[in-house]
Structure formats: C-alpha cells, structure tokens
C-alpha cells in the first residue's frame, strides 16, 4: 500500500510540476457545470451541502448554468451520468462521492477537454482534480464538547463505511473526547451505507440502549439527530447544522462549506487558469468548521473549544500530533512526531478510547 501511495504522489508531483496542460478560458455565459450526488439532494446532510455549493456557484457567477443528478449509485451508473453530462455539453463536472473515483478517471480519459473535480478521492489526471477538507479538525472540537457533556461516559458513534475517511473522523472525535474526559469511551456501529435513514436511526437507538448519552455520527442524513432527540440524548450532528432535527439536544456539528472550493474552481475554469490539483484544506480555509453550540453547552466548554480552534487554525497544533496511542495503549505516534498526510489518508486503526474492532482485514 505504501508503494502505491508513493507512486501516486510521484505521479501527482509530475503532473503539477509539468504545467504542460492548459485549458482554454470559457466565457461565463457558455459554461455549464454538472454535479453528481450520491444521495438525494434533500438528505439534509452530505448531498445537501454539495448542492449548497452548487447554489453558491450560481450566485457567484450568475451567467453560468448548473445542473445535477441525485442518488447516483457508486458504480457503472456514475459513468453513464457523467457521459450524459459531457454529451449535453457540460465542461466542468463535480463528482461528490468517494466511490465515483474509478468512474471519474474512466470518463475523464475519454474526454480530455472536460474538467473533473472529484471530492474525497486520491486519483488525479491532467483534467481531474480532487478536493476534500480536514474534517478531522472540526471533529476533534466536537469531541471536546461531547466529552464534556457525557455523564455515563459512553458515547455512541453511528458510522457509514469502515474506510480511512470515517475511521480518521472517529479517531479525531475520540481524541477530543479523551482530552477532556479520559474515562469516556466511544462505541461505533457501522451502517455499510452512506445514506440509510432507517438504519441510521436504528443504530442510534441501539447505542442509547447500550448506555450512550451522547451520539455522534458520520452518515448522510439527519435521521440520527432525529432519533436522539426522541430518545432524549445529546447529539453531535454532521455535514451541516442539524439543530433543526434535534432542537433541544443538538450540541454542535462539524460542518462543510464546499462552496469555498467550487466557486474557486469555476472562477479558474472561466479564466482558463485551472490546473489539476489535490486540495486538502483545513479549518483555516473555511472548508470545515463547527456549527453554533446548543444552549445547553456551558460557557467554559465554549471557551475551551475556541482556544483549541485557534491553536489549530494558527497551525500551532493539530489533532494527530504525537503522542497518539492505539486502542491497546501502545504509542503509535511518538511525542514530537506528526502523522503524515499519507498515514492520515490510509488510517486503519483506532486510537485509545474507541471500543470495538474495525471490520476486518
């Protein structure tokens, strides 16, 4: 796996370094931008936030045309959808789920004049850029809140797929929890789905039954907050401010603002200055942040989060700077060391404080 990553990085460096490929400027009123969503645009979470970034583009560049296809399965369907966009004359396509990766590359190879931006993947090409944000930073902050609020010292985590992105988020959250509450543990239930409101709420109830009094989540809908509100436990949302789903129980939520990326990319494509790049921005760029606190979050917790937030934004510290211990207490990242981006992108072990096992290799 290391070898593959090194190879990919080498390819990326080669591409960025070469500057050989340039795209012609496209007048604003001729540009058509397509978005491919993995879930329904009304999921109130992941795809909804991507759709807000589409609307941000329309607002920033009123002359352009945008369009989207929702609920596209990760697989051959995605190829067809992107090809249809291309056939309809779209010159820029945002594919907004990890599982579209191979399909983006396939369609991009056959359509070198079209610019593709793939969210959360790692494969780039001359006409394929990738973008993502360091959500783990905001997750860490939300963990500080959750760790301060739990009384049973058991926190539930409803998680989509056991892949590095989600594992990284659970770990960052747990680091936050343990920073304020070394006795607390985080229990995880895997959904094996990005969007399945039924399973999301069932998992929430199961965690509550197991003693969790705070629920956190990495899934695409607002079903977990809704179930938490009903069960009377605190909840940390995800993707966007989910206090609408849990008006009296919503502590905060790590949230996305993809518009930072989409408006920039669209601007570059209009000017003809776009080049393939690998965007992995942090909280300082505004791509990730924390939703407003619920009324129940006490002042001292807010102050603590604010302090930690400015340390991260100023670059004084980051979530996975050592020491980092794994579940068994072994130090995996020594004091003074930092996890590299490659290590973060292939995270496959739990930090201390997470209960259970990662479904397996």
């Amino acid at each position: 796996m290391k070898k593959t990553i090194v190879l990919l990085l080498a390819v990326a460096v080669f591409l960025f370094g070469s500057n050989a490929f340039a795209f012609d400027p496209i007048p604003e009123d001729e540009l058509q931008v397509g978005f491919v969503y993995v879930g329904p645009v009304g999921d109130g979470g992941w795809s909804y936030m991507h759709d807000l970034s589409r609307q941000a583009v329309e607002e920033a560049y009123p002359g352009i045309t945008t369009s989207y296809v929702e609920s596209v399965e990760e697989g051959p369907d995605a190829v067809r959808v992107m090809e249809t966009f291309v056939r309809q004359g779209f010159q820029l396509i945002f594919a907004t789920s990890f599982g579209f990766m191979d399909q983006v590359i396939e369609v991009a190879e056959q359509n070198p004049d079209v610019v593709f931006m793939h969210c959360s993947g790692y494969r780039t090409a001359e006409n394929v850029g990738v973008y993502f944000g360091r959500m783990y930073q905001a997750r860490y902050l939300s963990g500080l809140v959750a760790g301060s609020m739990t009384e049973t010292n058991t926190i539930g985590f409803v998680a989509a797929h056991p892949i590095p992105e989600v594992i990284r988020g659970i770990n960052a959250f747990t680091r936050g929890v343990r920073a304020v509450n070394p006795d607390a543990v985080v229990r995880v239930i895997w959904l094996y789905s990005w969007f399945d409101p039924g399973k999301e709420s069932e998992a929430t109830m199961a965690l509550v039954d197991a003693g969790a009094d705070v629920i956190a989540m990495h899934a695409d809908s607002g079903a977990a907050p809704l179930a938490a509100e009903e069960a009377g436990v605190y909840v940390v949302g995800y993707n966007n401010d989910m206090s609408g789903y849990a008006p009296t129980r919503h502590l905060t939520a790590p949230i996305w603002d993809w518009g930072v990326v989409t408006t920039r990319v669209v601007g570059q494509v209009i000017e003809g200055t776009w080049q393939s790049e690998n965007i992995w921005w942090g909280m300082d760029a505004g791509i990730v942040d924390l939703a407003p606190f619920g009324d129940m979050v006490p002042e001292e917790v807010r102050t603590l989060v604010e302090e930690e937030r400015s340390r991260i934004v100023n670059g004084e510290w980051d979530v996975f700077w050592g020491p980092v211990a794994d579940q068994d207490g072994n130090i995996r990242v020594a004091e003074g060391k930092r996890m590299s981006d490659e290590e973060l992108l292939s995270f496959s072990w739990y930090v201390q404080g997470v209960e259970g096992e990662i479904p397996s290799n």
Partner: protein
Amino acid sequence: MSVRIRVERRLTQPVWIEAFIPLFSIVMALVTGSIFLAVLGAPPLQAYNAMFRASMGDWLGIRDTLVKAIPLMTAGVGVTLAFKMSVWNIGATGQIIIGALATTAAVRYVYVDNRFVMFWLMFLAAVLAGGGWAAMAGYLKARWNVNEIITTLMLNYIALQLLYYFVYGPWRDPASLGFPMTTPFPPAARLPFLGTGRIHLGLIIALVLGVIFWLVFRFTRWGYEIRVMGESPRTARFAGMDYVKNVVLVMFLSGAIAGIAGMGEVAGLTGRLQHGFTAEYGYTAIIVAWLARLHPLTVILVAFLIGALHVGGEVLQIVMRLPLASTQMLQGLILFFILGGEFFRRYRIRFHTGEKE
C-alpha cells in the same frame, strides 16, 4: 332513464386488445405525466423528447439502455420461470449477489489465463452458487411447506451481508486505501464486449435464455407440466406429476439464471466486485416479469423499456433540471397505467341504458 355500468369478464381476448391496451396505457400515463411536468414548469413534449432521444434516439443511448437492461432481462427470465409454477421467488436480488460472489471466487481461486476456460469456470460457479442458494428455499418449501416468499426474501439479506463480509474483509483490494472493493479482474476474466461499447456477452446470454425458455414452455412436456403445477397443483398431483422434485428444480434454475445476471454485472460491466454492486435489479426483475405477463420473450422487451425509462430519467434531471422524484413519478405512472390496463384486458365494461326494472 338511467345508465347502469356493468363489469363483465371477457370470455375471449381478441388479438388487437393484446397490443392496443399496453400501448394505450403508456400513452395515458404520458398524458397524465405531462400535467405534472407542466406544473413543475417543464414543457412536457420537450421533456419526453429529451427522454426518448437520450435512451433510444441514437446508438449511445441505445447502448446505455441495453447495458441497464441486460441484468433485468436475465433475472426477469429467471423469476418468470419460478412464477410460471406459482413459486414466488422474491430472492433474485440475493441470487444475483451470490452469483457475483461465486464469479469473483472463481477469478480469485481457480484463475486460468484463458478467456474461454475462464468464462466457463465463472459461468459454472455462478450457476451452481445462484442455483444452490435458491434451491435451499425450494427444498424448504418442498419438504416442509415453508413459505418461499419469506425464505427467499430473507436469504437476500444474508447474501447482502456475505457481500459486505467479502468486500470489506478478505477480498478487499489492498491498494484501495480501505475502500470496499476487490482488485480489478484480469482481462481473461472479463466477458467479451460486443462492438465498441460496453455491451457485453451478457446480452447474448439473456437473449438465448429468453428464447430457450420460450421454447421450453411452448413445446416441451416439462414446460407444460410446470404450467399445470402452477395453475392447479391438485390437477398436477392427480396426473402424477412430481411437485416436490420440480419445486426444487425450478428454484434451482431460477436462481441459476439470476446468478448468471450477477456474473454479467461483475465480469462484464464493472470488472470487479465492489460495495456499490447493484443487485436492486432483483426486485425490478419481478416487475419486469409481471409486466411481461410471464412471457420469456416479452420479458426481453419490457426490460429494455424499463432500462430506457431509467436512462431517460437522468436526462430529465440534467436537461430539464427536474428532481429525481419527478422522474420516478413518471416511471411509477407508466407502471401504474400498464398494470391498470390489465384490468381492461380481462374485463369489459358495458353501459346499459334503459328503465330500471
């Protein structure tokens, strides 16, 4: 004077009605749909035109529709077979998954670098696994009269969990950075493509299966027996037909064909097994079978139309900027009207005018 309306069963079904009613139903669905489209601010004719052009208007559209239709055709023929015998196999979804798993297992464990040999290995694996999976439910029904609707449905969930186990666990591609999918199949394990597009050998297999089972039901004694057992198990028993044996056999064949559909998806289309592997075809295949009135050749045609609806629906989103729900509504309307039209195929409505007696 009063008018009385009376519903009467048709004693005979004239030929013109067989063709006219489905067509009329589709037209009525489109007319009704156009009201919704107009309300949503999309000019209906323009919308239908875009749908038609994208799904059947040119070679690329037809190709996309066929690709979508291949698993529907195959699995549709499979469930048709079971339904003919009034054995309600709801488990095509699970059988497709098991077929895909067996195909992947063949590629991983008995790989031979020869396209011809590898095809038959995968084919055999998919047939045995898909068939065996379904035959379990068949055996439970034959031996203890366990309701096959329940067992086949529940086996779907077991199959899904097995899929998750393998793609997240032992078969996960180490280079995928943890994403749940297997390594890509080597070229010898890919089904040949027909022409330049991504239509694969699965299309030919589907067509052949459709023709074979049409012939079987039309001309063979066994096909006749299956139909009799489906329509009247008691008659069949008096005639000395072996219901128990045939339930298991029919379920095996039905599952085996669904398994072949699974093989086509992984070895033909995606070239790897992955989490997003769509087996929802298994449920749509049931609709296809019923819309085709359990006729194996009509299944092929209906599957193509359902594929076209799906492909055309996406264009509505892109070109007309309509939400997914509106295209699903159109699809629903068409199904609703076609099934509703069935009523008029079987019954006639008579208006009686005259004094009340």
